[in-house]
């Protein structure tokens, strides 16, 4: 066993506590923010059914019970996924989040699939050629990439693709094509779904529509990873074992692959994990407003327009849980690879 169970256990306990804390925090937000919590929970209803809806919400939240009982009740409902119907969509809240999550996650995974290797490669290349013109070029590019507003870049990409190719990559899949070929979503990951159904036409369409948003989101991970990797590689090159390897006359390529790459893997994994979550917010901003895709972004917009507090709180809790889970996994992986971290 390379990593102690004790460490994993501790990390998992802490993450569970944090997730419970977020649920409590979101409930307190609902209670303590201005306005009647029952009205908020019912989605600021108007018209004839309003009183009934508010009474129902009051019952659901258990507002006549003491606060700690309400919180316990709320946590219970969250963990069993029983948050009632969404105001905006009229289907269970957890179902709303899951369906949006699949769409956004598909985009994110696709983005990271090419941006992480590219960022690492740029960083290594610029560290090996440090001080040269290509190094300062890569450095400048990566600073600019990391400070580009993604929603702006996305619109420009859309404009460019429209004027260059006449193709307007709006939405996740062309509905006409999906209808004519009988494409039906199964898992919510359209790339996977179209492959399962052997529907190559839809697969290509989905892929082409995935590229512009993926390029947009990729600027942040590429920029950050290029800079971090450069520093890490440059530091690793200063180590005595690299010096010894050079003295032994080992090939440069072998040194990079055997010694340098291996030592930078743990911190790079950590940075990728952190930026993955940052990019998730980026994806939420870009995907719906700019590229017209469904996903967490469209859920955010819809719950804004319908004053859907249930979905808002669920988003807060699920996104936080996602962040915690990703980071716990990253920590465990890191501890498995790097024995220095197991504290």
């Amino acid at each position: 066993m390379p990593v102690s169970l004790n460490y994993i256990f501790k990390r998992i306990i802490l993450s569970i506590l944090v997730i419970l804390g977020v649920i409590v925090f979101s409930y307190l937000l609902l209670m303590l923010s201005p306005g009647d919590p029952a009205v908020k929970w019912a989605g600021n209803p108007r018209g004839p059914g309003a009183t009934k809806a508010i009474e129902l919400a009051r019952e659901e939240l258990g507002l006549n019970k003491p606060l700690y009982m309400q919180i316990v009740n709320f946590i219970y409902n969250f963990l069993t996924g029983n948050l009632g119907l969404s105001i905006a969509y009229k289907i269970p809240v957890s179902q709303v989040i899951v369906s949006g999550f699949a769409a956004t996650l598909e985009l994110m995974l696709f983005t990271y699939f090419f941006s992480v290797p590219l960022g690492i490669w740029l960083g290594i290349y610029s560290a090996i050629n440090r001080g040269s013109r290509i190094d300062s070029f890569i450095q400048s590019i990566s600073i600019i990439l990391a400070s580009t507003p993604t929603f702006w870049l996305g619109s420009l990409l859309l404009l460019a693709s429209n004027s260059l190719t006449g193709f307007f990559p709006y939405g996740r899949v062309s509905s006409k094509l999906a209808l004519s070929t009988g494409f039906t979503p199964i898992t919510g990951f359209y790339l996977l779904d179209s492959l399962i159904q052997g529907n190559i036409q839809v697969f290509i369409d989905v892929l082409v529509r995935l590229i512009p948003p993926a390029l947009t989101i990729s600027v942040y991970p590429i920029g950050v990873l290029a800079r971090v990797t450069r520093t890490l590689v440059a530091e690793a090159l200063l180590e005595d074992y690299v010096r010894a390897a050079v003295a032994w006359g080992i090939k440069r390529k072998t040194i990079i692959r055997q010694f340098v790459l291996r030592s930078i893997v743990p911190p790079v994994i950590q940075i990728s994990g952190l930026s993955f979550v940052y990019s998730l917010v980026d994806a939420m901003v870009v995907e719906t407003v700019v590229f017209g895709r469904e996903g967490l972004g469209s859920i955010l917009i819809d719950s804004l327009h319908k004053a859907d507090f249930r979905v808002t709180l669920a988003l807060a809790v699920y996104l936080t849980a996602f962040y915690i889970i990703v980071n716990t996994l990253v920590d465990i992986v890191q501890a498995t690879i790097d024995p220095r971290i197991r504290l």
Partner: protein
Amino acid sequence: MLLPTYYSRIIYRNLKKTRFKIGVGISTIIVVLAIIAPLIAPYPDEGYGYIPADAGERKLVPPSIEHIFGTDALGRDLFSRVIIGTRTAVIQAVSVIFISLIIGMLIGVCAAYFKGIIEITLNYFIELFMAIPSIVIALFLRLTIGQGLHVVIASLVITWWAWYARISYVYAKSVVELEYVVLAKLSGLSALKIIPRHVIRNIFQALTVQAISDLGSALLEASAINFMGLGLPSGFPEWGVILYEAITERGIEAFLRSPWLVVFPGILILVTTLGFSLVADPLREDLDPRLRRRWKLWF
């Protein structure tokens, strides 16, 4: 802590680097623009969001000599809006970073100084708030409190303080083990004196550099929140809001007909963020001895 000669020496030393020079240049221009914005803007009223009387005739005019950046869908001069938006951008970025830095530093230092249950509790809260995405907090505040500058700032501060608390905790953790801090503690000096005198003074420099480099990210996130329509009301002079009006409200197809509405505010966001990170980068290299080392060695 705030020795002017010391800081001017750092700035002077870094001024030899091209990147730092460019960064300082951009940041200075942005800050000066923010201060004198109403003097520069050709139509300051429209910059603040007033719709001109002859709006119907000058809707969506492409860039020309009269309107350098063109006009928006309500006939307002885009150049004035963008210039006055500089002010909002600086206010947003600086106040978010400043407030989070103060809160985070105090909590982080306390967590490092007082051991035991306080450390565990504070660290738990740091972990908790670092994990909550600010955009969802912004949505919640938008639904309960409404729109406004304070909503944007609050939703960012709620999540950002934890980041500074984490950093100050890590730095302060090693500082409180230093011998003179331990000695001060043993000789009975109160925590109220030790913390500002010894602990904060030691970590302040590193935190300041981190804060400067985060100004850009704060601006990016604030404008993303405004772009989604979660923060400032439309008509407010802010770059994210201008983009919101151009894209979110009118739909992306409308942008294809009037690209100048999107291009100019976006460039301003990019340049400002870039300026802040170009200032912070060399400073960080200066501070971190590992980064300062010469790399021309064996390889």
